[in-house]
């Protein structure tokens, strides 16, 4: 076997933390990780947030983010030890032998320079080619990555191309100096699902054609299975399991890997149609100061104790629908019937009962809770506000709610900053539940969570629905989530409902073009899915 491009032995990475109530101290964030990467191979690093996958990825460039230090082991790139290399050696290394593709292309590009200037910058700085050679190389890469108008796209500025295109331009930037190793750090995570698939296919092809070695970092096992040769599963800075893709997917050895593979396996029986609790009737809405409708003629309804999933990409109007139903954005036409009553269009004129029976849970639990209030205050406020509970009675009810969301004792006096991501979302659920609502609008409530945590939240929501007979209007872009919990589905595209019905109807062929695109874009956990999906699609994604 030839010498590996990248070889990491017993890597140890430490960081200094500054907790508010203790003196600063060092914690080990990566411990004893070893890996080898051959030329032309792709190694997928997978794990939840905090697993250390990005940190390991950056260590391949001998770099640690603020306060992070590579304290032990060795990092060999092209046969040279680089962990202890000096600044000058590293400068000649980075952007030449190893390059990096970041998660958020929008934040990584300089808005004041054209794309071409930025793509060829590293190549020119290292003197690897003349400007015209480098630009020719870049155009070739643009073409290979499937960017529209490859000869001229370099003259544009970052804001003039879409997010998916920008991510591909960044890939071109990384490949332009012809490095031996590229580190991809969650390159498709911030993209819409239908765009992700294009970028994924482009990256895969580019890696294959140029023959570079790559580290591909992601939290989505189904994604990494499409592009990698080998997968390393990480948890809390340690290696859980390493193997070739097929073995990890089909025959995982460790329990943790098994849990990751089997995530999203919730089975949910679709419930029968019933008299609706919520009926949205011909709703059309636009934001003030604009001249187009973000929602046009929306008709959906939702039965008590059931879940209506509203699916679509960013900009399809699904969150706007939530704003209209809650009264934050009065519609231009149409009406909303709730619980046998007509809801007034404007939030301010709604009765306390209307407000109480319609609750909302947000995507980012972090900003949905006041950081200066304790869990007890956050959950207790609706009890006090709607039911007049005070003192001991309120505290007792808060504890009951905490038990219901499986958090138990010891959390009531904590602040949101002292909770994990999943716990924060649970507290938000408890706050909604405290009002004894008939309907909860869930706006992308699991999108910001790790897959295993999201799984737990979905199971909890289903359980609570069975107990409390509460209906959910579930807004999401993730079809796997929809399959797991919905009774009926509304597919939204450009402000219209393009497909609506019970889950079995909507998910059964024949599909309209958009639903087909959406369904075929959800990564599946099997080899060869990406190629099939690309070959079988009938419509180009919006990000193209």
């Amino acid at each position, binding site marked *: 076997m030839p010498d590996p491009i990248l070889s990491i032995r017993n890597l140890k990475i430490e960081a200094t933390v500054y907790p508010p109530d203790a003196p600063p101290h060092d914690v080990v964030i990566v411990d004893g990780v070893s890996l080898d990467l051959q030329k032309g191979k792709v190694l997928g690093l997978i794990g939840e947030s905090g697993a250390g996958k990005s940190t390991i990825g950056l260590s391949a460039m001998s770099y640690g983010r603020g306060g992070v230090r590579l304290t032990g082991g060795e990092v060999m790139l092209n046969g040279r030890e680089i962990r202890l290399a000096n600044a000058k050696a590293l400068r000649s290394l980075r952007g030449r032998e190893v390059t990096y593709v970041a998660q958020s292309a929008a934040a990584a590009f300089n808005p004041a320079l054209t794309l071409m200037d930025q793509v060829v910058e590293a190549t020119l700085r290292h003197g690897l080619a003349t400007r015209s050679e480098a630009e020719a190389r870049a155009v070739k890469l643009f073409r290979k990555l499937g960017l529209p108008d490859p000869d001229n796209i370099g003259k544009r500025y970052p804001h003039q191309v879409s997010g998916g295109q920008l991510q591909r331009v960044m890939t071109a930037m990384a490949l332009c100096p012809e490095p031996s190793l590229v580190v991809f750090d969650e390159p498709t995570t911030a993209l819409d699902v239908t765009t992700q698939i294009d970028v994924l296919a482009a990256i895969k092809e580019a890696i294959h054609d140029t023959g570079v070695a790559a580290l591909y970092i992601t939290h989505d096992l189904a994604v990494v299975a499409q592009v990698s040769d080998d997968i390393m599963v990480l948890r809390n800075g340690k290696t859980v399991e390493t193997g070739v893709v097929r073995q990890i997917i089909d025959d995982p050895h460790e329990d943790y890997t098994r849990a990751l593979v089997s995530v999203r396996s919730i089975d949910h029986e679709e419930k029968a149609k019933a008299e609706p609790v919520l009926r949205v009737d011909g709703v059309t809405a636009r934001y003030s100061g604009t001249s187009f409708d973000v929602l046009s003629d929306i008709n959906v309804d939702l039965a008590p104790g059931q879940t209506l999933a509203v699916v679509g990409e960013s900009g399809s109007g699904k969150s706007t629908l939530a704003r209209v139903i809650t009264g934050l954005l009065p519609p231009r036409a149409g009406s909303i019937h709730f619980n046998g009553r007509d809801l007034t269009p404007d939030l301010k004129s709604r009765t306390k009962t209307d407000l109480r029976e319609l609750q909302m849970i*947000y995507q*980012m639990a972090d*900003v*949905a809770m006041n950081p200066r*209030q304790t869990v007890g205050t956050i959950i207790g406020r609706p009890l006090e*506000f709607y039911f007049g509970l005070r003192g001991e009675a309120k505290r007792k009810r808060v504890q009951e709610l905490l038990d219901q969301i499986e958090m138990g004792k010891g959390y009531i006096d904590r*602040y949101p*900053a002292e909770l994990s991501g999943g716990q924060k979302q649970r507290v938000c659920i408890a706050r909604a539940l405290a*009002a004894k609502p008939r309907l909860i609008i869930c706006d992308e409530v699991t999108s910001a969570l790790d897959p295993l945590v999201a799984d737990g939240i979905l199971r909890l929501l289903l359980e609570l629905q069975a107990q409390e007979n509460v209906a959910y209007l579930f807004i999401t872009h993730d079809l796997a989530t929809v399959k797991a919990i919905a009774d009926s589905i509304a597919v939204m595209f450009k402000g219209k409902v393009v497909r609506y019905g019970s889950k079995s109807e909507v998910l059964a062929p024949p599909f309209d073009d958009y639903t087909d695109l959406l369904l075929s874009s959800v990564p599946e956990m099997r080899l060869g899915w990406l190629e099939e999906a690309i070959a079988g699609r009938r419509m180009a994604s919006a990000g193209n």
Partner: protein
Amino acid sequence: MIRIPPSALLGLVMTGAFFFVAIFADFIAPYPLAAVVGGVWDPSSSEHWLGTDSIGRDLMSRMIYGGQTTIKIATLATIVSFGLGSVLGFTAATVGGWVDQALSRFVDLLMSIPSLILALVVLSVMSVNELTLILVMGLLDATRVFRLSRAVAVDITVMDYVEAARLRGEGTGWIIFREILPNALSPLVAELGLRFIFAVLFISTLSFLGLGVQPPGADWGGIVKENSAGLVYGIPAALAPAVAIAVLAISVNLVADWVLNRTTSLKGGRGA
């Protein structure tokens, strides 16, 4: 137990000392405010620690009474500016619409005129007493506080927890005082220290120009004015109040810095 860094401790002790002397001036000052007890610009001696001033009054006593006046006016003006500025700023951010427009444009109008010139004009047509001084300074400073608290609150009102409170049906009062204020506190506290110092400088400037505290009353700016002629003859009497103003400014800032650092790293603090 809170660990106070040395710089903040120094600031706290110094600020505390200034306020202590100001509050108990009547008991501490060795001579009455306006009594002529010596010659013109006597040098410092065991009887007159800082010497005497331009007409032979004890400078130490004048400094102590002057500090009382300066600190009292600055404190009250700061309270007025904060009460007015923060409540109006939060209201503008929370209510929005034409209320925000009206308040913001009025504040723009006031801020477009240099505050010293505006104060000079207002004070030269009104009878100058402590109440007018406090109100004029408070009102002018409130424009700065309004700007800051509105900016801070606008960032907070877009948070989902504020929307959640609105959807719950909470009134404007709850949203301002329970959702926004606790999260806006740390920048406001830091600003409080700064505004107090600006108020000290402002009243000193006005008095130096003769439109602030009127004789026989004394404040630090006035004392600088009375003794400034002496500088030409190498008499340092005018420096004492100048040094006092500088030391007070530094002390208060040391405390404000520490408070800002502490509140942002609090449990649940936003700037951790």
